[in-house]
């Protein structure tokens, strides 16, 4: 079966996020002065072939540990959904 995996990578708490900080300072200039905790991360989307959803989830999490994220400075979350059969 084919599964689409969405990987969200965010900064661990305490890790500097210059992009988020800069955007947070820019938004009030447009009148949005009720905004805080802006954080900019990245999304990785990929398709995996796996026997079932649990296997796909486990494999993508392993990819995060080994390459897609750096656990020293980044957190990740993985969302797997089955693709419609062609």
């Amino acid at each position, binding site marked *: 079966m084919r599964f689409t995996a969405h990987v969200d990578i965010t900064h661990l708490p305490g*890790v*500097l*996020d*210059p992009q988020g*900080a*800069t955007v947070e300072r820019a938004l009030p200039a447009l009148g949005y002065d009720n905004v805080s905790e802006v954080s900019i991360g990245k999304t990785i989307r990929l398709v995996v072939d796996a026997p079932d959803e649990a296997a796909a989830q486990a494999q993508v999490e392993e990819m995060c540990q080994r*390459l*897609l994220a*750096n656990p*020293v*400075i980044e957190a990740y979350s993985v969302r797997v959904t089955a693709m419609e059969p062609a």
Partner: protein
Amino acid sequence: MSARVAVVLFPGTNCELDVAYAVGRLGGTAEILFHSERDLRGADAVIVPGGFAHGDYLRTGAIARFSPIMDAVAEHARAGGPVVGICNGFQVLTEAGLLPGALQKNSGLRFLCDTVEVRVASTRSALTAGAPRDAVLRLPINHFEGSYTCDRRTLDQLRDEDRIVLRYVDNPNGSLDDIAGIANAGGNVVGLMPHPERAIEAVLGSDDGVVLLQSLLTAAAAFQPPVASVH
């Protein structure tokens, strides 16, 4: 015999010629090795120079560990051979697991290009063995992701084992504990953000990098590779 230093060249590396020049000027022999090579051709030491290895795709240094030559670099490190990562090379060594922690973006939100003062915090490393402890060196920095970070346990370990080798006098990038450079437990693998190879002649504004690179060449000359095992 002069120390032989392998200078690793990834696609995107841009400091290899400066490093090779510095090694040659200080009496060593540098050989630039492309990342697709599988062995170090008998080099006594390795320098992973600065730049943007593999375009810094995904994260700085993240893809470089898959280059064929990195197996040989890791093997050299395991055998106790001197390995030094400068700037992007430091990032590569952390991503490859040869040094702990990671380099995050500078706290000031800016790319930094400056000459800064660093203090020799430990002489128990291949890069600092010949420098007087507490000596203040003026070295160039040139980075955006130069702020060292690690978890609490790792920091305690680095301190307890005297593995923080260089500290910024006036922290330019928010680096944890003012760390500019660290070593592995054996002291033979060192990573640092400043560029000693750009501070080897007075005409460059500083020659304070000489004492560091000279230490490395001394360590390289003294390195005895283990008797080759049969594979």
